[in-house]
């Protein structure tokens, strides 16, 4: 294969390449659906209808997308620093622990206006702390962040099971879940919020955390591209030696990138616990951390791209559930397959369509 990566026009690089990657992934998905014995186009139609066919399904699509924006941003921030944070899953989970501890101790004493911001901060702080340990191990001890964050996911899961079963379980409860949060300590649902300004929508799991996620997008964009810290972080990701010569403290930047990443992953806890479950439950973060990798890769690490990718995956998650309802032979795990393929084609095989696009569009010279 040719090593020379000739430049492509900007719009091909930013617009067409990602689409070509996704198209390849969905081509394979279509083949798998065909193998199962279902007409792929019929399945696609049901999936789209299930994702955006009613105001309720749109609500659920956006609710899933909220989680994916948080974890996608988390992966992207670390990725810009040249760090591969696979621990979003565990960081979101431990973020939930922070959220739960804050609310369970204080919800009887504090009004919602204080309680909710505090719980959001606790989610972010615990997520950041869980990411800080592998970051420290990478920066000062030279251990590989991929391996350590994987291990931390398992440790987080074991820790949470222990705490939920032995410590935080509501008295008298048979299932491992905490007592319910006070009503003042919950993020209002989108339905309630819209009703307040006179718009009627069907109830769904969508809540105001979506706004927090969008705010995080803007924040990450400003931080990465319009502050000296973001500049140092991206320089480190591109070329650590150059960053070092430019005066960037690599160890501190590693800590900064990972803590920010973990804090963003903690956003999942806000959406799930404060927005939907209204109590601390097991496995609320399951799968979202890994989807974040697909979202970040597909969105090319840019907040705008991440929002678009998160919407797509939200639609897949919601549409996939509806599809499974209509055609039971296609289980919800089809979405997991799609995630895997997107990570493969937008990540590891990202340059696969390049020769073809080069043949079509490469600049002369």
């Amino acid at each position, binding site marked *: *294969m040719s*090593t020379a990566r000739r430049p492509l026009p900007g719009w091909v690089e930013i617009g067409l390449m990602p689409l070509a990657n996704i198209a390849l992934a969905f081509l394979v998905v279509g083949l*798998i659906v065909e193998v*199962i*014995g279902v007409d792929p186009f019929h399945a696609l139609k049901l999936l789209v209808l299930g994702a955006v066919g009613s105001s309720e399904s749109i609500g659920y699509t956006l609710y899933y997308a909220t989680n994916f924006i948080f974890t996608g941003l988390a992966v992207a921030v670390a990725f810009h620093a040249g760090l*591969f944070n*696979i621990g979003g899953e565990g960081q979101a989970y431990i973020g939930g622990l922070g959220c739960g501890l804050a609310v369970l101790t204080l919800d009887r004493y504090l009004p919602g206006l204080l309680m909710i911001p505090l719980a959001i901060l606790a989610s972010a702080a615990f997520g950041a702390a869980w990411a800080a340990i592998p970051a420290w*191990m990478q920066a000062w*001890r*030279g*251990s*590989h962040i*991929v*391996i*350590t964050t*994987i*291990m*931390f996911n*398992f*440790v987080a899961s*074991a*820790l949470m*099971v*222990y705490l939920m079963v*032995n410590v935080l379980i509501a008295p008298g409860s048979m299932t491992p879940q905490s007592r319910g949060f006070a009503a003042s300590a919950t993020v209002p649902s989108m339905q309630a919020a819209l009703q307040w300004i006179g718009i009627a929508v069907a109830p769904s799991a969508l809540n105001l955390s979506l706004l927090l996620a969008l705010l995080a997008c803007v924040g990450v964009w400003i931080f990465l591209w319009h502050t000296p810290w973001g500049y140092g972080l991206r320089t480190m990701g591109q070329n650590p030696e150059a960053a070092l010569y430019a005066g960037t403290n690599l160890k501190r930047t590693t800590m900064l990138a990972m803590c920010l990443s973990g804090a963003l992953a903690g956003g999942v806890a806000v959406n799930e616990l404060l927005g939907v479950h209204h109590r601390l439950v097991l496995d609320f973060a399951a799968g979202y951390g*890994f989807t974040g*990798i*697909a979202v970040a*890769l597909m969105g090319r690490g840019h907040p705008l791209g991440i929002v678009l990718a998160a919407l797509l995956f939200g639609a897949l998650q919601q549409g996939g559930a509806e599809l499974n309802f209509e055609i039971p*032979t*296609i*289980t919800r*795990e*089809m*979405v*997991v*397959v*799609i*995630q*895997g*393929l997107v*990570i*493969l084609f937008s*990540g*590891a*095989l*990202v*340059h*696969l369509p390049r020769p073809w696009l080069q043949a079509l569009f490469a600049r002369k010279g």
Partner: protein
Amino acid sequence: MEETLTLVVATLAATLRVATPLVLCAMGGLFSEKSGIIDVGLEGKMLMAAFFAAATASLTGSAWAGVGAAILAAEVLALLHGFACITHRGNQVVSGIAINILAMGLTVVLGAAWFGRGGQTPPLAATERLNPIFFPIAGDNVLVYVGLLSVPFAWWVIERTRFGLRLRAVGEVPLAVDAAGISVSWLRYRAVLICGLFAGLAGAYLSIAQNAGFSRDMTAGQGFIALAAIIFGRWRPVPAFGACLAFGLLDAIAIRLQGVTLPGIGEVPVQLIQALPYLLTLFLLAGFIGRTVAPKAAGVPYEKEH
């Protein structure tokens, strides 16, 4: 006295049973990592192999056909990993994760579509499984012995053959191997294929030897524990084998300790013992228990100069 002896023997047998898939996986992973290809996808390869082993054994009635299908399934994923990482010089970790997620989804999707049991395969009869050879209680099926033999095999190939020498070289300084006129890509492809073979056997062990059928996510992180064992063994076969046995012993003890109160300590949380392999590896990686030295070129795609 006799009771204690029985308990010790039973625990040791349980250790070997639990450790076998770890050993097979770790030996396979060693070949890949030694050649400079990081393999985070051991888990996915093992899971896919476990599914195809059980599905094939159930459909054909032959355990050996199951083993063959397991190897084939793992090799397809190994080739995919090679295609992405060696041919296209893609990110090895991303590729490994993609394979894990793909396997997690595809095994359930195909299983549900083919068998309609929510991702499980039909329970296998004794004739469709690999059964114990000498000691029925110990569960010493043929793959247990393959696992034990894989360790001297890996040691001999890596340390004592020309192929092994080149394999180690390509994981440290691929440029030197290239300069000597040996194909870096072909060496790494062979390493990845050997890895697929062992991961396939590990998967088959899970679904048609240790258990009687496939259930969703049945690998439950064992691929990552194998990865931890490789790190713990400092990328050498015999110490990695030791780490697998230690992790297996922990698991066997965890099952025994469930709900037992130890004198002086109280009840040991099962979750702590389950997390111990990961915690120990983290301590090792943090440099608290000696140093680990990975192959230098691991994770770095080789770019041939023209």
